[in-house]
């Protein structure tokens, strides 16, 4: 007997054809202007093609025509939910190129800001990721806490989203009086809230059904595909720039790098949830140990690095954010400015991850690799 398929039962009338559907660029769950062209067999994804470039603003080209200080504010516009880490990465690259010494106090404040930013970015991720899968409450909870971090940033530099909060050689402003107390108070609030998110999701049956075994990728495969950050660590590769190539004050901090085992959406979720706690741990250590001293090193009035090139990477909330900068030593702008965007490299793995899953899982997987289109397209 033939297998019972619609075709054998009812003939050609119920023949299944391949269907090509277009998701985005105006789809709410693609987190911006991402377009995915899906080839479907029924509800199963056979193949996916990712189309990007809708938000391409030419930041690399633009930066080659701005002076070194003006670029800091352009980097804000790449990963706009984690502007502070973008600033830190750029400033450190220029400092490396100019061989500037950054005072310890500035390094500590940078570490605090980076980790606050990581929590804010992960809050946005957990909220939107859960809402894509159908859990509305987490979104409201996570945005409530993100607001507290934005308030801290507002008090520090006056802005809530695009901070422009770094300068080459240090910081623009010292921390306001009493700010460190508020940061510590926030850590105490946040501790309890992370448990709250976990109560809603970690053992939730619907959540487990929707995330376990979805988008499995092995560690070596993920590394070869260029995945980075929590998406790579979810597959069990303990790669964290903060540990491997320490910058700012991370070499003085004590923290663990959480790694997953299965490499599926659920493990990537668990890794990020643990990163919340590790970030709080770093913030507490850094805030309690802020040294006294200047906030800006000895920076020449005209910033003009000697001719040469360098690559420097930091761990942004999304993964390895690298800057490759070439200076010709003659003009006051970089000769070549290149960003290694973590979201771009993670998004490249999407077609590999969605193959064989259902259309609804595509949404879960886009959320699970945590992309920001401002950074993908630059």
């Amino acid at each position, binding site marked *: 007997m033939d297998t019972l398929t619609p075709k054998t039962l009812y003939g050609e009338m119920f023949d299944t054809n391949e269907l090509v559907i277009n998701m985005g660029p105006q789809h709410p769950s693609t987190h911006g202007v991402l377009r995915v062209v899906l080839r479907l067999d029924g509800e199963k994804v056979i193949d996916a093609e990712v189309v*990007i*470039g809708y938000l*391409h603003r*030419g930041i*690399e*080209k*633009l930066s080659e*025509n701005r002076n070194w200080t003006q670029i800091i504010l352009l980097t804000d516009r790449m990963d706009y939910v984690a502007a502070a880490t973008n600033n830190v990465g750029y400033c450190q690259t220029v400092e*490396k*190129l100019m*061989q500037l010494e950054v005072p310890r106090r500035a390094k500590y404040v940078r570490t605090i800001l980076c980790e606050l930013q990581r929590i804010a970015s992960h809050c946005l991720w957990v909220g939107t990721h859960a809402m894509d899968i159908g859990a509305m409450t987490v979104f409201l909870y996570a945005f409530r806490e993100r607001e507290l971090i934005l308030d801290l940033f507002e008090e520090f530099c006056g802005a809530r989203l695009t901070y422009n909060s770094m300068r080459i050689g240090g910081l623009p402003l010292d921390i306001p009086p009493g700010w460190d107390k508020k940061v510590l108070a926030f850590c105490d609030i946040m501790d309890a809230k992370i448990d709250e998110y976990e109560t809603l999701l970690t053992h939730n049956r619907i959540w487990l059904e929707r995330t376990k075994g979805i988008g499995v990728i092995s560690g*070596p495969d993920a*590394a*070869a*595909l*260029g995945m980075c950050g929590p998406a790579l660590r979810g597959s069990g*590769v303990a*790669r964290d720039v903060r540990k*491997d*190539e320490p910058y700012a004050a991370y070499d003085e901090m004590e923290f663990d790098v959480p790694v997953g085992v299965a490499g599926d959406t659920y493990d990537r979720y668990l890794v990020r949830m643990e990163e919340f706690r590790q970030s709080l741990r770093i913030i507490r250590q850094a805030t309690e140990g802020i040294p006294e001293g200047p906030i800006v090193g000895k920076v020449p009035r005209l910033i003009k690095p000697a*001719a*040469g*090139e*360098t*690559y420097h*990477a930091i761990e942004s909330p999304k993964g*390895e954010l*690298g800057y*490759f900068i*070439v200076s*010709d*030593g*003659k*003009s006051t702008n970089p*000769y*070549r400015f*290149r960003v*290694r965007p973590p979201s*771009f*490299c993670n998004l*490249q793995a999407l077609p590999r991850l969605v193959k064989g899953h259902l259309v609804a899982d595509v949404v879960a997987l886009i959320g699970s690799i945590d992309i920001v289109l401002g950074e993908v*397209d*630059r």
Partner: protein
Amino acid sequence: MADAPEHAPKVAAPTGPVEPAPPADAVLPAFITSLQNGVAGSVAQVSLYLGDWTVIVPVSHLLQAVEHLRRATDCAFDYLSDLTATDWPPRKEGRFDVIYMLYSTRLRHRIRVKVKVAEDTPVPSVTGVWPAANWLEREVFDMFGVNFTGHPDRRRILMPEDWQGHPQRKDYPLEGPGELLMESPLDWLKLRQAREEMDIE
């Protein structure tokens, strides 16, 4: 030269990056000596700047060299951090540098591999060694017009399919086509270059 056009460059365009040789007492790291011994003739030049090691590889040896860097146990560069290019139009030996930033997740070291190519020199694609190179090479092709061969899907990635020119090249106008797109949609880039030449004359 009192009435030079405003857009004329104030300083002469640089003809290449600075690639300082390592100091005489520096010891070459194991991954570079391994590459030198493993693939003869693959290291044309070694450079060390700010702690970053760079090897310059002739384009004919590129695939063998990266294959060695990926597989050899004392190199083990299993992670392609970044792939990009720089443009030095006046340079004699070819205007582009294609740069591969490699990292080893096991041994935790970095190396930069660089090839110098002309506009039409075919550069073998490294997608077979690191699948991560797929989009990165597409971007370099889109932005610079580097001629990658053996790439599974060589299309533009950030710019529209029918775009003219390669935006990251140094001779590409920063402001883009502007009104020229209305005047001559098919050939705005040529039109602009012709006008610029007239201005200079």
